[in-house]
């Protein structure tokens, strides 16, 4: 029992995390609620930067460290305290605890796009419209910019993005004379051919990944989530979701997917030794290849994501995150100065040089960046493929305002399709029901 109590007590702070700081219901207001209506001008931000002070930034993005160093050189009176409070979920938990406790809240936090609406609707984040963020719209790619917009407010500046690409092991493909698939149907064929030729080799790994599933449905044109304020619709019966189900169900049924979870040691081993032949994921992946699957160096290449309709060029985002200013942060003007520097100003180049994938349109059009040759990909100019993918991201996608929860029960529901006779379609239906139940319990109107 004591462990229960400990959990309950430790988490007690998290309790009122989101709604405690808001409570009200008018989330759809487009004017934003921060700053008491007073708009903060660039001059005021600049003044704050010159005046200096201390900023606490919670982020796990590795290249931010260099950005902070450069930032402090430029603004010597500002001291940035960069804290790695965990990756993803772990940081969100810590963040929610701090928000509920009302102290220890950082000024700036890194938040993934899929989690952003949840924090925005809980009024944990500052609407940057009152800082004139709307004017920066043209600086960013439409995909990431769309992701930081929620209910009419701008709740962060995009830091990186993950336009999807298909990474494949060319050596394996060549060995078995398999063509790089242009469509998902061809991908399925390639999966069969490869596994038949070498029973130890799989086209890819998958043990049920909410991020991948939603991204592929996104690419297929599916829009299972419709969010209008607190009115939410979840429907995995639309055409895009069905396209995905058709191909993926076959991959599962014919046991063509390696039962290895992404980000495990086995995953990287598999990429190095050729037993996992492709990975469809965001353009931020290359740095991970280099550090975690060094054995694959020179063997891998990037290609455009296979298409659901032959001849199309649709893409989707997978991952990516923004820097947001906490509503309860102390020094918001200074924080905004940092955000602009890191995500829109000089900091962008620092991060790109460090291997991050940018969200700014200027970088994506930069010939020098486009011409970068990736040693890991045998000298391939992979950024050209990524940049193209970034421009072809299907518009109109939105995540649930409680996606963090929803993703956490993905394996309870859809995961069953990977280990039992449950079909993928039934799994998605169960996921839909479970998410809807939670949404309704949380005060949304979910249909």
């Amino acid at each position, binding site marked *: *029992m004591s*462990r*229960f*109590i*400990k*959990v*309950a*007590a430790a*988490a*007690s702070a*998290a*309790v*009122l*995390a*989101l*709604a*405690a700081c*808001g*409570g009200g*219901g008018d*989330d759809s207001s487009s004017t934003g609620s921060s700053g008491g209506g007073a708009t903060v001008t660039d001059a005021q931000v600049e003044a704050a930067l010159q005046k200096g002070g201390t900023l606490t930034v919670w982020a796990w993005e590795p290249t931010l460290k260099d950005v902070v160093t450069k930032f402090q050189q430029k603004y010597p009176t500002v001291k940035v305290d960069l804290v790695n409070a965990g990756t993803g*979920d772990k940081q969100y*938990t810590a963040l*929610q605890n701090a928000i509920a406790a009302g102290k220890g809240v950082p000024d700036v936090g890194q938040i993934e796009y899929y989690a952003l609406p*949840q924090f925005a*609707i*809980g009024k944990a984040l500052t609407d940057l419209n009152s800082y004139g963020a709307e004017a920066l719209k043209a600086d960013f790619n439409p995909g990431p910019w769309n992701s930081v917009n929620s209910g009419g407010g701008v709740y962060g500046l995009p830091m990186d993005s993950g336009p999807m690409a298909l990474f494949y092991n060319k050596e394996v493909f060549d060995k078995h004379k398999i063509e790089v698939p242009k469509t998902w149907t061809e991908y399925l064929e390639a999966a069969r051919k490869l596994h038949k030729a070498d029973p130890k080799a799989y086209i890819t790994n998958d*043990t*049920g990944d909410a991020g991948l599933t939603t991204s592929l449905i996104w690419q297929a044109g599916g829009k299972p989530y419709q969010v209008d304020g*607190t009115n939410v619709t979840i429907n995995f019966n639309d055409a895009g979701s069905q396209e995905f189900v058709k191909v993926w169900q076959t991959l599962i049924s014919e046991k063509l997917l*390696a*039962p*290895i*979870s992404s980000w*495990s*040691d*086995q995953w990287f*081993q598999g990429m190095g030794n050729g037993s996992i032949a492709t990975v469809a994921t965001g353009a931020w992946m290359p740095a991970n290849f280099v550090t975690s699957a060094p054995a694959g160096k020179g063997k891998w290449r990037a290609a455009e994501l296979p298409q659901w309709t032959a001849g199309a060029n649709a893409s989707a985002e997978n991952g990516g995150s923004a820097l947001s200013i906490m509503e309860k942060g102390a020094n918001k003007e200074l924080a905004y100065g940092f955000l602009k520097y890191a995500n829109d100003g000089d900091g962008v180049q620092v991060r790109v040089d460090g291997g991050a994938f940018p969200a700014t349109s200027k970088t994506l059009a930069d010939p020098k960046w486009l011409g970068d040759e990736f040693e890991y990909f045998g000298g391939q100019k992979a950024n050209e493929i990524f940049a193209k993918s970034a421009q072809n991201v299907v518009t109109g996608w939105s995540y649930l*305002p*409680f996606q*963090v*929860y929803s993703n*956490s*029960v993905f*394996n*309870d529901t859809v*995961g*069953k399709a*990977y*280990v*039992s006779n449950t079909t993928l379609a039934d799994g998605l239906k169960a996921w839909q029901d479970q998410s809807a139940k*939670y949404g309704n*319990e*949380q*005060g*949304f109107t979910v249909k």
Partner: protein
Amino acid sequence: MAVPLAAAPPATRRARRSYRGWQFVGPFMIVFALVFLAPIVYAIYLSLYRNRLIGGNAFVGLDNYTQALQDPQFWSGVGRVGLFLVVQVPIMLFLALLVALALDSGRLYGKSFFRVSIFLPYAVPAVVAALMWGFIYGSQFGLIGNLNDALGITLPDPLKPSLILASIGNITTWTFVGYNMLIFYSALQVVPKSLYESAAIDGAGQVRIIRSIKLPAIRGALVIATIFSIIGSFQLFNEPAILRNLAPNAITTYFTPNFYAYSLTFSGQQINYSAAIAVVMAVITMIVAYVVQLRGTKDL
């Protein structure tokens, strides 16, 4: 709680009430209230509210409890640890008893070596143990996978949904046999040697000595070990939490009541409901443990 009761009587005999007793037990009571009672009270307090993303915090009375009692996910978790309890605990305690009796028999060569090596798994941190076993269980790159490759066979995957509970039981048995063995062994140590001598004179064999002297003598220890194991089973958390990284589809977020409470808190921010689950589970554990204690010590 026994302390203040024991200290109180002298004070009540006087006409003038004296608080001297409280001065002695006060420091203890403060710490007790702070670290034992306050968290429980706080958990109960939390469980009476419901905080929502939209609409904020509100008092809901016993709604969370009504919901918990009707929650199929919660009950499936309770059922799972119940099954675990009924199967794993007897196996583990039987093995521990066997080892303790073997060590106590004095006929074992290298007794202290066995004692230490059987106890050793308990000294391995639970998280490390789960990670280690997870690696052994891996049918792709783990020991099972290596065996399959080397011998050209296909062993059943210990991480598949139908076997995962047994696999977890194997880990906890491995960990706790040594711990329980130590409890039994130390209880056996205090049995007066003269009893064995008289038994031998009466012509009793080893089996008879075990049945008529050793087992009755350590009955208290058996009951205690059983109660500890029951509580441990209901608290099952580390192993599923760690193995979930390897078998995300076999271990659900409501695999055990403890893990369910954890998931509710940290993935869904449903702290209030989680607190209600915790309280219900505490009550269930107390009832089961109490029943076992009553039965176990009936004619002691």
